[in-house]
């Protein structure tokens, strides 16, 4: 077709805007870009650059670090246990009816959304010399005097598994929920025994979830600070503790920068290795990894090749082992899955117990942290009611959280629209970049923002602190909203448009109202992130009023008494309330859908 014969139309503003739709579609991402570039990428670049003295190329700090004894061992244990203990729970969860699954997952969500600090505090109570474990052991006569559990590697691993295993369970669950269970039935009909069916059919299909969990838990574990700092001993120093000590106590900044850079590089290296096997989006939301969004990268080709090579060579061995295993565990794999339930129930007790211990302790009549409490009293609630410093901390936290949610919702939602709807290539890279603040260890971001805001003169200001919280909260908004916007039926906007609604009217009357549930979730999640945030706050707070986590942190370290459990109980109640409401809403939605489904069948 000859181009010259096609009549070129006079272009109106409308058409001009449409012609540049590609670029224009990215405009809503501007606030997100400013936040990510201005307060994430640049600060990180600054500390990496300074870690070798810039142009001086002085790598002395790196040489020193490599001689420091920093243990990655703990992270490896935590990852291993999170997967081994989490896999059966996720497996059972994914095979349950939606309603039962919602009930079971409530017991995972409540501890998951309870602040790290509170849970770590609970473990201090449980594992301490006067704790439940020691008291039980003595009562049973296994030991004569309390044994040392707190401040050992064991305590760190327990505390971290408690924090990270629920995250792993949900990551694996997201993958398992998409596995078609009929394939399992098909394999059994075709003659495979349950063990072989599991190993040859189910396990391979769930492996991407296991990989995603391993990656996620590992990168979170190597950057952990709170749990090792409170539960560990001197032998368990994690690299983030090293960074805090170097930069806040010893004031050896180059060493801190170098440690942070190493931690950053280690995280990126793990992510890079993982990306060869699984789409990285899978770790934060399984929906992002649906076919059509990630394209051909969905298939875990690397994993498949390795597995293929392995299974070809070891096939006869497998067969013998599988048959032997079936003889052994066959009776356990009964239809009613009794053993899966027993295991899952044990795990749920493990996850919920610390929360319950805290609640019980808050009614203690003793001035000391002993468990079980010698008697009932409301004294700690009375103290809490009169404690002006706790009230001030709560108000400070609410203020910072509210501001961070506002910034995060605007930047994250607008950014999610741009990322999902822009026709431009490279969206996936931008999406991963917008997730990166929650991927890299918080300590690295905290240190980077500290140095950077100090240079900008923002350190110790409300603006500086809110920005820090917003950088951490926004990625969650992006994840939630991107998935919501992707699921949003655009013909609704077309319908509004063709029937006379202008773009602003469409946004106000159609798009935003329909996305309201997702906006609520995103806002709550963002608030929770800010409300629990400790490390960034430690670095950026300056002389601002203490937030709740800071107040908590100081009290745990300097005045360990049951007042903390009263304060914790109040927060736990809020979490139980929020989780309860959202789970109840999900249940109601499922029921309504069931009713509607029947109704449609009747009218059809």
């Amino acid at each position, binding site marked *: 077709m000859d181009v010259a014969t096609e009549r070129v139309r006079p*272009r109106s503003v409308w058409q001009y805007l449409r012609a540049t739709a590609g670029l224009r579609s990215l405009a809503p991402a501007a606030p997100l870009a400013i936040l990510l570039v201005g307060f994430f990428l640049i600060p990180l670049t600054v500390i990496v650059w300074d870690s070798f003295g810039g142009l001086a190329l002085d790598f002395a700090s790196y040489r020193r670090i490599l001689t420091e004894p920093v243990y990655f061992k703990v992270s490896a244990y935590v990852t291993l246990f999170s997967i081994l203990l989490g896999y059966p729970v996720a497996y059972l969860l994914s095979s349950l009816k939606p309603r039962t699954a919602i009930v079971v997952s409530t017991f995972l969500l409540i501890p998951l959304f309870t602040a790290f600090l509170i849970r770590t505090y609970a473990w201090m109570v449980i594992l301490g010399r006067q704790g439940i474990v020691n008291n039980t052991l003595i009562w049973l006569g296994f030991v004569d005097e309390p044994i040392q559990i707190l401040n050992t590697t064991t305590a760190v691993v327990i505390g971290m598994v408690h924090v990270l295993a629920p995250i792993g369970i949900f990551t694996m669950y997201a993958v398992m929920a998409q596995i078609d269970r009929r394939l399992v039935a098909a394999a059994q009909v075709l003659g495979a025994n349950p063990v072989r069916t599991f190993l040859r059919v189910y396990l391979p299909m769930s492996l991407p979830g296991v990989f995603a969990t391993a990656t996620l838990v590992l990168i979170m574990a190597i950057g952990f600070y709170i749990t090792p700092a409170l539960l560990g001993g001197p032998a368990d120093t994690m690299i983030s503790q090293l960074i805090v000590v170097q930069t806040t106590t010893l004031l050896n900044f180059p060493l801190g920068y170098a440690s942070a850079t190493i931690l950053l590089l280690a995280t990126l290296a793990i992510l890079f290795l993982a990306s060869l096997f699984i789409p990285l989006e899978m770790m934060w939301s399984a929906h992002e990894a649906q076919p059509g969004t990630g394209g051909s990268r969905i298939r875990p080709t690397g994993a498949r090749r390795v597995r293929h090579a392995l299974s070809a060579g070891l096939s006869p061995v497998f067969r013998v082992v599988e048959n032997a295993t079936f003889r052994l565990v066959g009776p356990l794999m009964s239809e009613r899955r009794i053993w899966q339930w027993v295991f899952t129930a044990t795990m749920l007790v493990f996850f919920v117990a610390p929360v319950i211990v805290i609640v019980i302790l808050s009614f203690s009549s003793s001035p000391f942290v002993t468990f079980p409490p010698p008697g009932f009293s409301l004294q700690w609630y009375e103290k809490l009611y009169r404690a002006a410093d706790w009230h001030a901390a709560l108000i400070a936290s609410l203020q910072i959280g509210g501001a961070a949610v506002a910034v995060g919702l605007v930047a994250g939602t607008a950014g999610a629209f741009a990322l999902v709807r822009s026709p431009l290539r490279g969206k996936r890279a931008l999406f991963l970049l917008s997730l990166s603040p929650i991927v890299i260890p918080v300590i690295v971001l905290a240190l980077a923002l500290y140095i950077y805001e100090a240079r900008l003169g923002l350190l110790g200001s409300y603006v500086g602190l809110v920005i820090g919280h917003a950088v951490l909260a926004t990625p969650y908004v992006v994840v939630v909203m991107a998935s919501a916007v992707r699921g949003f039926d655009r013909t609704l906007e077309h319908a509004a448009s063709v029937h006379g609604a202008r773009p602003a009217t469409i946004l106000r009357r159609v798009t935003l109202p329909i996305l309201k549930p997702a906006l609520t979730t995103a806002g709550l999640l963002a608030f929770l992130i800010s409300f629990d945030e400790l490390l960034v706050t430690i670095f950026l707070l300056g002389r601002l009023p203490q937030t709740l986590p800071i107040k908590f942190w100081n009290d745990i370290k300097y005045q360990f008494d049951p007042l903390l459990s009263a304060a914790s109980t109040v927060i736990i109640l809020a979490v139980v309330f929020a989780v309860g409401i959202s789970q109840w809403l999900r249940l109601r939605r499922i029921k309504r859908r069931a009713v509607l489904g029947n109704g449609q069948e009747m009218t059809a």
Partner: protein
Amino acid sequence: MSTSLVLRNVSKVYGRDGRAVSDFSLDVAPGEFLTLLGPSGSGKTTVLKMIAGFETPTAGEIELGGESVVTLPPYRRGIGMVFQNYALFPHMTVFENVAFPLSVRDVDRREIAVKAREALALVHLEEFADRYPTQLSGGQQQRVALARAVVFRPRILLMDEPLGALDRNLRERMKTEIKRIQRELRMTVVYVTHDQDEALTLSDRIAVMRDGRLVQAAPGPELYNRPADSFVARFVGESNIFDCEVVADGAGARMLRLPNGALVAAPSAAGEVVAHRLMIRPERISILRGEEVSGAALSGRIREAVFLGETTRYEIDAEGLSLTVKDQNRGAAPFPVGAHVALTWRPDDAVLLSD
């Protein structure tokens, strides 16, 4: 209220994907029910999107009531539209959905109430005004979508495969409903479908599309009886199509030579073209017992017979040609498989195709 629609040399080219619509021209008269019919990927939905304003033509002109609308955004075109999945706003009640086109135009509140009730009455859904779309059946949702699309008396109504998601019985009922409402409101309608039955039942005129081009635009009977080419012939109704050659017999009459060598009388409309294709509808072929019947076009053997109720459908081998014949059941015993039969048709029931 109704308006004419003119599409002139409209083309749409997508980035690298290529041409979705090529040089498409069509005039739709005020009050006309026009259907765009074609298989998926034929560009019919793209044409509809360009009329609505969701897509801008790469070239060409679109006029509503004599005015160009190409530069107008959708919300200024004054169009009503029913979408394939209805696109009802899930957070609004049925009433609010229907009132939407009026409320975004800042119509007076009382007037909105009156007009929305009227539109709901038109589709017999007055008592469902306070329900939410998810509480309605598919057919009811469909009618809400229709009420919303006509409540503000749009200049033209667009419908994008509106019956695709309904089951068969409901589809039949909705066809009648749509036709009734279009007549009552005397509205110009552009309707998109890939279903020939829908197109034939509803339309004043059908525009058949293929690969982004308009193949033929004509009223249903003409499309069926005089298809422009073998694509239209195959897409609308069943057909037997053979290559053929125009030859003169001994007496100088023009005859058609079929691929198996048989000579049949040419339809009177046969032109001077040398190579042709011949199309004959299965129900236009008469089927007679016996091998030799004088004047018969072809003789053959029944390969398969399927009883369909009002007709019996035969697959027949006729000396190397395979034909489908539909025979009205008038009480006579059907021909058994293997029977030798003679086939005949009136020369003017056959159509010579241009491709």
